[in-house]
């Protein structure tokens, strides 16, 4: 809120913009998301503060007394905190808010699924910008559990060809981020547009590849910002692609093609096809063996002078306090993100070097969601940050064999 005399409350769900395949919310469906958005603010703010207090004043002293040492990693902290009555209650409440978000989003979507599917068909049928491939298998890291406690995950269908997975994912982001991603949940993509225009003014990439695109939130703004660019977005899940394509078409992103494909094998594209290859909040939903394969395929299809960019939450470096690592790990064990913890303990710079980059080509930067601040709040990154969901990311990037960007960096 811009006015200093006002307390911090979530914007209303009414402020969310409608696109061509948005579910139409009833009054009470809006009210459910309004409650959850504000409840999540309370959980990460005033109530969330209790976790650190409990740790400092009783969990850590008890651990020291029992072990004669400090916890050696975030897992030991988690096990100790899971014995604490306050943290148990906080976690149980948070888990319920996640489950309620899913139920509310699914109820709103499924109540009108026939209408939504019909709208999607209008945007999808006969378009060569949507390419589904039934031979693509859902990888085990996508099917082992339902990610984010999202029943059916990204690939679940209530009826053949439906788009409910995408519509539910899209509408509920408002509740879990308390509006932090803006009117179209695209604050991340808007931030990328702002970033590249400042970083490399006048640059016109010929082709962009977005890997693990889900509903296309973060790639549509880039497609609109570079209308002459051929933009490709891939995902393994057909339901989410049907939704993403219809959404993108309705927003005018007609230079954006969605293809059902697995990023571990990009062999349909020649070496050096793309000037920009990116993932946004995707790599943590892969696996230990898939991640390096994906990165090296991304490197291969990236052209010289091109940009690779991966947006994630910050990695668990030695400099990050163990308690913060534990906080950031909550979703891994409580919100069905089974690769989250392992992924964030990787050194992404090492991973990118293993994929082919020279260490001198790498850079890191922070990316904050760009949204209409008149309506939508800036996501806090202080002690009230909602770890795992903050609309502020860490970008791991590199320019491939680029003399120009190398000079700019120096």
């Amino acid at each position, binding site marked *: *809120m811009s006015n200093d005399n*006002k*307390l911090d*409350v*979530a*914007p*209303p769900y*009414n*402020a969310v913009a409608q696109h061509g395949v948005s579910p139409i919310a*009833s*009054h*009470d469906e*809006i*009210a459910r998301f*309004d*409650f959850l958005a*504000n*409840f999540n*603010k*309370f959980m990460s703010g*005033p*109530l969330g*503060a*209790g976790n650190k*207090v*409990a740790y400092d*004043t*009783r969990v850590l002293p008890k651990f020291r007394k029992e072990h004669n040492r400090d916890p050696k990693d975030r897992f030991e902290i988690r096990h100790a905190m899971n014995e604490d009555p*306050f943290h*148990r*209650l*906080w*976690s*149980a*409440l948070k888990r*319920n*808010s996640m*489950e*309620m978000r*899913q*139920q509310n989003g*699914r*109820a709103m979507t*499924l*109540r009108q*699924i*026939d209408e939504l599917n019909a709208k999607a068909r209008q945007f999808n049928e006969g378009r060569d910008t949507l390419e589904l491939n039934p031979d693509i298998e859902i990888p085990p890291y996508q099917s*082992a*559990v*339902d990610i984010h*406690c*999202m*029943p059916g*995950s990204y690939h679940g269908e*209530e*009826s053949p060809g439906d788009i409910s997975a995408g519509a539910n994912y899209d509408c509920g982001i408002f509740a879990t981020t308390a509006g932090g991603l803006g009117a179209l949940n695209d604050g991340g993509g808007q931030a990328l547009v702002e970033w590249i225009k400042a970083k490399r003014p006048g640059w016109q990439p010929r082709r962009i590849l977005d890997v693990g695109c889900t509903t296309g939130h973060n790639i549509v703004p880039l497609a609109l910002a570079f209308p002459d660019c051929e933009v490709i977005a891939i995902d393994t899940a057909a339901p989410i692609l049907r939704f993403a394509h219809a959404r993108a078409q309705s927003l005018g992103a007609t230079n954006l093609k969605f293809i059902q494909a697995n990023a571990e094998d990009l062999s349909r594209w020649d070496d050096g096809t793309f000037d920009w290859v990116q993932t946004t909040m995707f790599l943590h939903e892969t696996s230990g063996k898939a991640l390096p394969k994906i990165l090296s395929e991304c490197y291969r299809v990236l052209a010289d002078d091109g940009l690779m960019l991966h947006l994630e939450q910050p990695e668990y470096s030695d400099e990050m306090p163990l308690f913060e690592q534990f906080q950031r790990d909550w979703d891994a*064990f*409580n919100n*069905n993100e*089974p690769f989250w913890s392992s992924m964030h303990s990787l050194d992404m710079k090492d991973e990118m070097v293993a994929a082919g980059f020279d260490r001198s080509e790498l850079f890191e930067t922070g990316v904050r969601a760009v949204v209409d601040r008149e309506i939508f709040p800036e996501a806090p990154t202080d002690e009230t940050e909602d770890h795992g969901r903050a609309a502020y990311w860490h970008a791991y990037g590199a320019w491939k064999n680029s003399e120009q960007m190398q000079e700019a960096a120096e």
Partner: protein
Amino acid sequence: MTEQVFDWMAAANKRAKGKRPSYFDAPESDRILSILMAVVGEVSVVRERMDTIERLLETKGSITRDDIESYTPDKQAAYERGMMIREYIYRVMRGPHQMVQEIENPDRPVEEISAELKEI
């Protein structure tokens, strides 16, 4: 979906694959909290609906359900409603909120103080 009625609310209740953590020693406590939180959420929904009806009635004498469904708060009303939800959350979350204060500044049992007062 073509012949049978699609029970969308039953479908909305589908559980997510992946073992649900146990937060409390008694499994029923986890489930009772789920019910309680659902009620907490639904009371907030009823309050927001009441607020909508009151605001609509302030501007015209009679309203329809369509008026309620299509109501969109302006910026000021949106803030006031946000504040209403915030206040409500603080009211129902008093217990957990006070737990934080209690951990920050633990109190001695009143029995101890009672015994002391007897002596001074």
